[in-house]
């Protein structure tokens, strides 16, 4: 997946945000035209693979390839000549990266946080992107880092989304700690978006285990209080559990803890480990072959589902789990997914299987084997 292209900028003095088109019939000041021959017309900017020439408009030349961009995609262009894809119109999985900062530091973070203040820049970027997103966008994820670290701008961003995209499902991935302060939960509730759902990780029922996994003292208590505050204000909640060596020992207890203390959660998701970000670095204390936690996972999933809760399993391979868990396995949660091992080619379940993340091809269960029809 390519999200970035670079070329030689001309007349680009500030961040530009616009919609890609290759159709010379279409014009408009929100549009960015892709083409080697400079058209006459009203565009925000031109992107071209050709050598520099005069266009009369802000242009990036000499880009090695623009094939990854489709008409309707939204990109940003910086004075440095970097073209970033910020919205892909043909994808179901568009993410708004609110900030790369985070107040936790999870052992298995797939996008390790950075301690730079990117918030003003990203807020300005998305303030301009959101109105350009097609109104029929099905789902939008707001992720980080920890999005609530944007402070008041986090709520302004959600207000903008709510206003511009009233029919879009908005999924915010947060560690929920900020909502231990009730006025922030209340602030979120005031946005009053029924399509808003928060995905919040809980990795254990016991604070020490959770705090160690997220590498932050006091995180568990804050998250649980946050969940309660959010529920009290009527915010829809999903609880996310990543499966690894540190979370498995208390997994069945966690399932019962969720049912008893967080029964208001609309969805509980169990997710296989992703071999990316911090994970390779911490693999010694994280790795457990998914085959070896089937008992715990089965008990946790069947308990919660049995009590009427909505349960899903992500990032997991059908051949590794017992068949009784198949109904809970969901196919894919991003465009990075759906890579397969050579073994998968002869598998009868290829079409139903979540397969593997590209990066998980390097580290996966020893029990993957094609299923016969």
């Amino acid at each position, binding site marked *: 997946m390519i999200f970035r292209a670079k070329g030689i900028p001309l007349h680009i003095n500030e961040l530009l945000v616009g919609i890609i088109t290759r159709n010379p019939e279409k014009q408009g000041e929100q549009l960015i035209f892709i083409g080697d021959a400079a058209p006459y017309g009203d565009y925000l900017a031109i992107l071209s693979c050709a050598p520099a020439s005069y266009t009369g408009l802000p242009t990036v030349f000499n880009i090695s390839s623009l094939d990854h961009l489709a008409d309707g995609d939204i990109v940003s262009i910086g004075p440095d000549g970097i073209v970033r894809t910020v919205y892909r119109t043909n994808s179901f999985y568009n993410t708004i990266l609110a900030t790369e900062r985070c107040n936790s530091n999870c052992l298995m973070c797939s996008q390790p946080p950075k*301690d730079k203040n990117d918030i003003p820049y990203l807020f300005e970027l998305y303030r301009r992107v959101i109105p350009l997103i097609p109104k029929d966008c099905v789902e939008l994820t707001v992720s980080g880092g920890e999005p609530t670290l944007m402070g008041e701008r986090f709520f302004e961003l959600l207000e903008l989304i709510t206003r511009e995209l009233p029919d879009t499902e908005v999924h915010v991935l947060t560690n929920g700690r900020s909502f231990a302060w009730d006025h922030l939960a209340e602030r979120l509730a005031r946005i009053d978006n029924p399509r808003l759902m928060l995905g919040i990780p809980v990795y254990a029922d016991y604070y020490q285990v959770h705090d160690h996994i997220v590498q932050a003292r006091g995180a568990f208590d804050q998250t649980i209080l946050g969940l309660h505050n959010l529920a009290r204000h009527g915010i829809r909640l999903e609880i996310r559990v990543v499966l690894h060596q540190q979370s498995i020992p208390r997994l069945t207890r966690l399932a019962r803890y969720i049912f008893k203390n967080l029964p208001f959660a609309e969805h509980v998701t169990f997710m296989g480990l992703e071999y990316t970000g911090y994970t390779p670095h911490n693999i010694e204390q994280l790795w457990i072959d998914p085959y070896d936690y089937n008992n715990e996972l089965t008990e946790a999933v069947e308990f919660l589902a*049995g009590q009427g809760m909505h349960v899903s399993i992500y990032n997991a391979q059908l051949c590794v789990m017992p068949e009784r868990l198949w109904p809970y396995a969901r196919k894919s949660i991003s465009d990075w997914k759906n890579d397969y091992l050579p073994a998968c080619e002869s598998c009868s379940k290829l079409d139903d299987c979540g397969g593997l993340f590209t990066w998980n091809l390097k580290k996966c269960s020893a029990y993957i084997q094609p299923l016969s029809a």
Partner: protein
Amino acid sequence: MVETLIQRNTRKFKAPDFYAGSGNVYFLLPFRFHRLNDRKEVLVNEVGDHLVVPTGTAARIVQRKLRREDEAELYGDLIAGFFIAEQQLPPLIDVLATRYRTKKSFLDQFTSLHLFVITLRCEHTCHYCQVSRVTSNKDEFDMRYEHINKGIDLMLRSPGEYLTMEFQGGEALLAFDKIVYAIERTKPLALEKGKQMTYVICTNLAVLDEDVLAYCQANNVLLSTSLDGPGFIHNQNRRRPGNNSYELTIKGIEMARQWLGPGNLSALMTTTNLSLDHPLAIVDEYFQQGFRSIFLRPISPYGFALKNEKKNKYEIERFITFYKTALQHILNYNRDGEFFREEYATIILKKILTPFPVGYVDLNSPAGSITNAILFNYDGAVYASDESRMLAESGDYTFRLGHLDTHDYEAVFYGEKAQELADVMVNEALPGCSECAFQSYCGADPVHNHATQGSVWGYRPTSTFCQKNMELIRYLIELMDSDPQVKQIFEGWVSQRRAS
């Protein structure tokens, strides 16, 4: 957001120990314990979560002999389960408070079950029944219209949104015209007041006909009947001319299911001396008749030789044995892959295994009388419960809260009698119960106490109510702890997904 102000110097990973609390000081949260058997005891916290541990654990916890380093798993269980805390005021105390509020939230709706004894007339002569009359004297034994009207008025004063109006007898269907009158009168008034009504008729089905069924079908009226077991038990218990109560009941069940659907008909059993010898046959009968649940109704105090302690103890022991045998038999059906549950266990298990409120009249604290259920008798008298009016039939008016002719809503529900009762309706404050581990699974039953021990407070060491509940609760927990399959079956019984 406070966290963002702290400058982070390093993102180096730290070991689990770094995240443990400091030192080995811990504080006790309110919990109680009970011995399960020679090897194990159970701890129960303030909101009813339980933890089975080796004998002696409670003592070690209290004596501060527990060390995190040595028993990390147990220590984690105790912290996570709200048994102990590392701060005097635990950070999640509000979660515990919310859970407590939720558990007791059956009180929010106040009185929901309204029993109307629409007639005392009956065509049966069951030997254990002290109340019904075989008579055709409607004037004397049917509820009068003005009393029905007044009862409906009081019912609709309830703050609850969901109300149940249940018609009892005698044989309620002998006064079907009055039932229709009562429902038709309630419908518009309930609509006006925004109340969601459930209508139930308790009937032995003997006089059931198509007119009745058509009305029930059109108005979503549920039927609740009695089935004591196979014919030889049922007909022995439930005498009527022709000795054919069982046959009529089975025929009625079939008809009712055809008209109303299987979910709108339920059956209750009464345990009698004869029943006690036939637990398996009774369970099998329910299963064969297509029921997927059975309520092994705890023997009522009126089956006892009241106030004879020795005899009572013996009787209740027999019942407990009967119950366990029947429960094991039911579990066997489940082991064979059938869904078939026992209702009394399910009520207790819901309290043990779920965070939700369970409003079962006979096992609540505060007791279900008044706070959950009220009874309007055929003669206009108002009683705290069904048992209360049975006492009244034998001349004991202790639980008579007033009369529809003379008492208004306030006088009935907040009057002197109700206030006196309130003192003994809370098992958290009853001697014996206040330290009992099973307090949150059990309830207070002043009517039972009064009937069997002559005191509304009761005396736990010889209380048959306590004897029965303490043993059944202990048994259920022991079963779950000793057999993971039973635990799974029980978790299935309490599931929200199952129709209740």
